[in-house]
């Protein structure tokens, strides 16, 4: 783990509108290195939209977001400092797990673990040269999560990361997340089931 510098994410009074409809409004959040936040709320309240807005996929309705890294050599935009794993896993079914992860590294940059090491952390090294299309839903998700370890980015945005994962894989994910936080990373997860990590910041949407 190479993230040594302190990072801070500050979100002030964020709201996102799709067309005329305001999906959510007035969300504020402040988090720093080593902190994890869970975004909770009923279905359709805008948890995924919240994460996609932070990732920069959606224009912000109002509010401010800032990302500060101490000792930052270059002030890279937030989108280049985060990982996003959403409902769609971003994997190509026709390519093998290794090829998918190598492409992920090529696109995201700043390599950390090799595809084999990353899959090994998800206990999936045996599927390295299988096309991802042959894998089960849970295995695909584990390959997508292995991408988090491939490229070194401090902020992880995970949308329902536990979906399709069995108990064992959930434990593996918790270990990876704990390592990431331990090395100074940040994580923001939209979830219905608590990950059960200590000192989790709760962001509750739709509780007005």
């Amino acid at each position, binding site marked *: 783990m190479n993230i040594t510098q302190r990072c801070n994410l500050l979100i002030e009074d964020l709201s996102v509108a799709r067309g005329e409809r305001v999906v959510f409004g007035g969300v504020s959040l402040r988090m720093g290195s080593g902190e994890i936040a869970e975004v909770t709320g009923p279905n359709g309240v805008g948890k995924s939209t919240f994460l996609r807005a932070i*990732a920069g996929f959606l224009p912000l309705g109002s509010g401010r977001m800032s990302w500060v890294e101490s000792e930052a050599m270059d002030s890279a935009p937030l989108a*280049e400092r985060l990982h996003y794993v959403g409902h*769609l*896993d*971003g994997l190509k079914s026709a390519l093998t797990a290794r090829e998918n992860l190598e*492409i992920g590294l*090529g696109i*995201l*940059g700043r390599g950390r673990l090799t595809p084999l090491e990353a899959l090994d952390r998800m206990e999936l090294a045996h599927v390295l040269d299988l096309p991802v299309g042959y894998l089960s839903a849970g295995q695909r998700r584990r390959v997508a999560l292995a991408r988090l370890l491939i490229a070194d980015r401090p902020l992880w945005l995970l949308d329902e990361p536990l979906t399709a994962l069995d108990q064992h894989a959930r434990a593996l994910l918790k270990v990876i997340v704990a390592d990431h936080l331990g090395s100074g990373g940040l994580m923001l997860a939209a979830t219905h089931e608590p990950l059960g990590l200590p000192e989790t910041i709760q962001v509750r949407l739709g509780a007005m």
Partner: protein
Amino acid sequence: MSRILLVIFLRDLMLARRIGGGGVLGLVFFLSLVTIVPFAIGPDLHLLSRIGPAILWIAALLASLLGLDRLFQADHEDGSLDQVLLSPAPLELIVLVKCVAHWFVTGLPLVVLSPLFGLMLDLDGPALRAVAATLLVGTPALTFLGAIGAALTVTLRRGGLLLSILVVPLTVPVLIFGVSSAQSGTVPFLTPFLVLSALGLASIALAPIAAAAALRGAGE
């Protein structure tokens, strides 16, 4: 940054090879159009060789429309478009690289095989060369103009039809100058060929900007 673009270029070529479809489908469609026209027109070789360049150009235009709807849609559906948006490379350049890869798979085979198909329409040597040269310069313009339509229809499940309606009017100038420079005799080769080259270069320069803007809007 050029590494990122190279990765995306090679990925798209690799996917085209693994999945197949796009390129070969366009080629077979091209061949079947060229084969079927002489049956409709009848055994008049003079007529056939006179309208041959136009037939080849229309066939190439329709064939290059075929695979276009998947250009960005495949990436949108499996979430890889999100990953690409997180890369440090600007989306405009990524669109450019994806179009070039798409042209390599679908446009270039049409150019290479057009002299062979031209023989079936009784074209002579200079006409075959002229058609191949105009297609070489013109098919990139078709791909890049089509990319605008592909980006606009990226979220639509059956976007192919709408894409054709959007793109075909844009390709009319390319078709006019392509055919008029390929059809030797009426006008000199060079003047329309230069206009065609200009259209190609302009679409390569401008279409990625339009397509990238459409893709960013598609997230909303």
